[in-house]
Every structure is written in C-alpha cells, then in structure tokens.
C-alpha cells in the first residue's frame, strides 16, 4: 500500500439547495441573501405541528426530469436530490464514464437520516396490513445506501461506492472518505457529498426531540443535495479537466461536545493542509440555530478567524444535513479568489465534527 503523492482536486460542483439548484442559481441567491425559510408545507404532520407548522427551507418545484433524462418509477426524495446533484456535478466536471474508466470512478455519499419517508410508508403498511402484504418496490428504497446504488446504476460506474452516516457531518465525512479512497488509489475520481430530504417523520421526530426553531433559537430544517467531484490531480490533468480547487486538508473528530469535536477536527485539518488559520480568508460556518453548535462555531471563529470573512449558509437554506458540505464547498469556491483558501466547518449535536480546507 502506498499513498498517492499528487493532490486531491475538485473538478465539479453540483449543489441542490433550497435557495438554488446549480451553481448559477446558488451563487445568485446567496449573493442576493435570498432566504428559502418559510413555514413547512405539503406534509401530513401530527395535529399539533400541523396547526402551527415549523419553519424550514424546502426545495420548491423540484423536478428530477430537469436534470436527468431517464424515467423513474419510484424514488425517495433523498435519491432524487442526489441523482440531480450528481448529474450537475458530473456535467460540470465533464466526467465521462467509459468502459475504460468505469471501474475507477466511484461514489461516496452521506445521509444523516436517509429515506425516512419511504421507510415510514413501508413500515406503516406492514403495521396496518401485515408482513404478507409488504410492498417490495418501496422496500428496496428504504435502505440508506439505495441512493448511492442508484447513482452507480444511472451512470454505470462500478468503482468505489459507499454511504456514510454520521449525523449532521455525514456529507463532510463522505467527502473525507472519498479523498481517502483517491489517496489510497481505490479510485481516480469520486462523486461525493450527500443528500437528505424533509419528510413528515423527520419533522415530527425533530420536533419531538425539541430541536426545531421556536422563536428562541433551534434548527431550521432544510433539504437538498450537495455533490462535488474529487479527482487525483494526475487523473484530472490526464483528461484535461479544469481544476476548480484543491482539497488541501481534511479531518473528522469526535468530542464529548460539538465544541470539543470541532476544535479537534479543525486542528488536525490545518495540520493536514499545512497551513495556519491566518492563511484562510473565508470560513463556511456550520451555525444552524442549535445553541451548542452555534457557540462552537462562533468560539472557533472568534479565536482563529477574526481576519476572515465568515458566512453561514444555513441561515438562508436551513440545516441541509448531509447535503451541507457539498453545498458549502461550492459556495466557498464561488467566493474565493485565485489562490485563496477557505475552511468549511461541520458539527453534530452528538459531538462529531469535521473540517475541510480548500483552495481555489
């Protein structure tokens, strides 16, 4: 086993955010501070929630057919969003899947909650009608790895493929795992990031946990997908791909609190990148309305990044869970000037955290 010496580069971006789908829409909406946050609608919520719907940021008028030609019989929104994001990222990267390259192209995607809506539908039918009348079509879409499989099937790549779940850091962790796969020569190119979808069981569950915004802070639930294309520098150069940025360093960590986890991940990521905090001009914060996460991000920025611009996309698009990291990387690269560096933060209320260091 040897570690590839060439850098891991970013060659494609595929954001599917409540504030904009695709890089042009995302960039324009973020620049214009267009918020997608409004009362959640279109879900069959428990009575108390339905009477006073919580705030969130939903993808409105999303149609997978706008991004993908092939027809689907049934898809959970988690899969639909991921397929759209992959289509955008793959096109942006100009990445062709050929018989020669298909074993060297992979997917590494995060899912915090996965296809909850499909699981709920499937389980409800089993509970109501018994196991004998369970729905086989929907069951195949209740697996958390279904979305990653559908992506591989859609474009026919038989390389590295995995789903990662680590709560709110799922997408960032999946990006780290993709970079690991490239550095260890498991793959030349990996579509990576993640996807999560707003559903009635998700909103009801988060409300029951006391996580949702109530006027005194709390989570603004969001949804979408964020996918980037990572490649080995050598592979990208060999096919003449335009390099959008470089993944200079990355790390994930666990802490007993979000603050401890974030500090540990941040320190390791900077060491891996070989830079100091002073070398970064932009921070994409993970602040999302959860007090412990907001204070962890704020403490880190106050201590290390008073010189830098700090942006908090979740204020506009809600907490997009596994989609966040891919969208954050896109926002960072769209804002950075040539040679500038950004730090992308991610933290979960259970103490997991991750940090990416990217340069343009």
């Amino acid at each position, binding site marked *: 086993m040897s570690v590839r010496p060439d850098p891991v580069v970013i060659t494609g971006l595929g954001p599917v955010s409540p504030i904009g789908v695709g890089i042009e829409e995302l960039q324009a909406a973020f620049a214009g501070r267009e918020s997608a946050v409004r009362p959640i609608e279109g879900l069959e919520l428990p009575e108390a929630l339905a009477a006073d719907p919580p705030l969130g940021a939903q993808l409105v008028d999303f149609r997978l057919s706008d991004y993908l030609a092939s027809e689907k019989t049934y898809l959970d929104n988690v899969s639909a969003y991921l397929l759209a994001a992959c289509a955008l990222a793959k096109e942006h990267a100009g990445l062709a899947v050929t018989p020669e390259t298909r074993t060297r192209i992979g997917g590494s995607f995060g899912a915090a909650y996965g296809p909850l809506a499909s699981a709920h539908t499937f389980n409800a039918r089993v509970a109501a009608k018994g196991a004998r009348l369970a729905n086989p079509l929907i069951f195949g879409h209740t*697996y958390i790895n279904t979305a990653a499989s559908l992506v591989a099937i859609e474009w026919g*790549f038989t390389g*590295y493929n995995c789903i*990662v779940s680590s709560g709110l850091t799922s997408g960032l962790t999946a990006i780290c795992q993709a970079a690991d796969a490239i550095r260890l020569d498991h793959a030349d190119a990996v579509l990576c990031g993640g996807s999560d979808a707003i559903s009635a069981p998700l909103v009801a569950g988060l409300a029951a*946990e006391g996580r949702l915004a109530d006027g005194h802070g709390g989570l603004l639930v969001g949804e979408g997908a964020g996918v980037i294309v990572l490649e080995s520098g050598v592979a990208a150069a060999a096919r003449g791909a335009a390099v959008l940025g470089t993944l200079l360093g990355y790390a*994930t960590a666990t802490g007993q609190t979000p603050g401890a986890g974030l500090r540990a991940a941040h320190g390791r990521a900077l060491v891996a990148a070989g830079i100091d905090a002073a070398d970064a001009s932009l921070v994409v914060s993970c602040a999302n309305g959860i007090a412990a996460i907001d204070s962890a991000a704020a403490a880190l920025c106050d201590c290390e990044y008073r010189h830098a611009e700090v942006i908090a996309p979740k204020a506009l698009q809600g907490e997009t869970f596994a989609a966040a990291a891919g969208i954050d990387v896109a926002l960072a690269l769209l804002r950075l000037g040539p040679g500038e560096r950004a730090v992308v933060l991610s933290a979960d209320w259970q103490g997991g955290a991750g940090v990416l260091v990217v340069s343009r």
Partner: protein
Amino acid sequence: MGVVSCLGNTVEEFAEALFEGRSGLCPIDRFDASGLRNALMGVVRQLPDRPAWLAADAPRYRDLAYLASATDQALGAVGLAPPLTDALTGCVLSTNFACGEAIAETEADPTGGAAFASSRFDTGVAMLARALELSGPSQCVSVSCASGTAAIGVACDLIRLGRAERVIAGGYDALALSSQAGLSCLRTISTDTVRPFDVNRSQTIFGEGACIFVLEDLSLAESRGVPIRAEILGHGLNNNAYHLTAPDKEGEGITEGVRMAVRDAGIDPSRIDYVNAHGTGTEYHDVTEVKAIKNVLGTRAYEIPVSSTKGAMGHTMGAAGSMEILASVLAIERDEAPPTLNLSDPDPECDLDHVPLQSKPAPIDVVLSNSAGIGGGNASIVLAAPGWMDRKGGAA
C-alpha cells in the same frame, strides 16, 4: 475481537459451534413471523449483559445491547477499558436497518423524541464514542449486506492514512419484523433453510448479532505487547451498477470488488489459501460469486477451500461481513476451513471445494472474505496471519 450471535455470545462459543458444524438457526418467537416466508432465523438466544462502562441513560434497544457486549469483549481481549484516550481512537460501524425497535416506537408514537433520536443510523457510533471517550473519526457506513466488511475496510484506511491509530470497527443488526417483512416480500428468504452452493438452494435465512474488532496500527499494537490475531492486507468496495434488487448474473461487479481487494493487498491471487464466500444460498448469487472468484483467482480457486458460514448462523445483515471476517481470522489461527452447512447436493456450477458439512484442515495464511448486498454493493477484504507479509508476502 468480540461477538454476539446465534452460535454464542463469546468468540470461544462462536468458534466451537462454527467448526463443529453446529447450526444456530431456530424459529423466532420474539415477534409474529406468521406473515413471513419462514420463521427460521439466526436468533441470539440470550440478551447479553450491559457493560459497566455504558451510561445508565444509554438506549436499551436490542441491537445496541449486542453492539455494546461485542465491544466490551473486544476491548477486554486486548486489555483496553474506557476511556480510550491513550491513542487517537475512532469508530466505524455498520448496520443495515439501524434500530428497528426505535423505528417501530417512533412509528407508533411520532411524538416520542427519545425513540426518534435512537433511530438514527449512527446511534451505535454515538453511544460508543460517548462511553469510550473517543476522539478520532467516528462514522457509520452502509453498503447493505456488505456493510460489515466495508466497515473494517474503511477503518483500515483511516489507520493507513494516519487519521486514527486505533479504530473500534464492525457490524451489528437485530432481527425485526419490518426488515424481515421487506426481505420476505422480495422473496430473498427461503421457505426451507439456507443451503449455500447446493443445487436445491432456495434463497437465504437471516440472522442477527454483532461482531466488533479492535484494529490498531501495527506499531501501536506492538508497543502495547498485545497478541495480534491477524493483519489486514487490503480491501475493495464497489457497486455492480446493474440493478437495485436484481443480481448481476455475469458477476462483473463482484469480480471488480474482489480484484480491488487483491490489488490493494499487493499480493498475487495465488497466495490466497481460503475464501470465506458471501454464499447466501440465493439462486443467482452463489453461481455469480463462484464465477467472480474464478475470474480473479484463476486455477488457484480450484486448489483451496471456498466455504460459506451462512448455513450456521444465517445472513446477519449489517453484522454478516464482520462475523465472516471473524470466521476467517479463526480459520487462519486454526489452519482449518469452516464448513458449509446444509450443502449435500452441490450445484454443478458451484464446482469449487465448498467444504460441505464438516470443517477441513488446511494450511491457511491468507484469506479472502467476500460480501455483497441489495443495491449491488460488494465488499471484499484480504487478511493474513500476523507477520505473513513480512515473512512471505514478496516470495513466490
């Protein structure tokens, strides 16, 4: 290493039953299985005790009890106890269905926040991270039924890249009506029993449990003076890119997964001494897997034992790959291939030495363990006896 399974709740019990050719399958009575194709399952007979290090408020669901017990055994076997702050320690776990009991509670009462919190896929990871005071990378991976192998491979990569010095890794799952209803309606469950490589095979039987390993960087393990049970040489993780639920009959995807693992291990396929096959006993998969093994191992495939342990414990879902890696480590230690139970009339298309019914003594230094799953995911891993790579890895 630690295990909770239908074959026993310790590594010793597991090994004894497995190599003696005893089956742990029995009808489940924990839930109403009358609507399923079969009540026969690999059921954990006795719920293990909770380790003392687990917080009183940690969730009390069955799958997490399996996970905690297997972890406790694995730590105890190498002289570790929480807090694991002596080295950068992470956690990579796998589960196919997360916590079925918590999901069922949430379905019944959507206002139950605690149950919803426990239904997250990374609940087991968070439980261990908190209780063991982990500081390294911690995550759950899922490649459906290949997850238990994938978790070990991903954990290995974290150590190889220096992102962790030690990783608590493995898989777990508990049988629940919802998952079995789905697998039953997909007709993956046999109405008979699981008969890998047999001409009369009629799909698989599912099981449950947990299997956890302590993986360490070699220098850390050596500095601690703990016995090293095996070394991981390499792994492969990929997708058939064929169909969500139908098998790729040509076996191109699984061939590529095996090839990735052997290439990553840096050995010639002729060095492999034993293959622990996924061997689910499903109509198409067994033939496809045999094709893939032949595709990569060539004539070596005909010279070595290739067995499936699913006849003994069923397909333990998210734990399956990890339990099969445990069986592989034991095979190396014992120089003995575990048997394929219920294989009495071999399928002519499964024409390798599938070790029917009784274990087989054989010199085993290097093992390939395969897993595959719904969605087309494949995971393979290559293990070797401690020090084998240094002694013989480069030799012809």
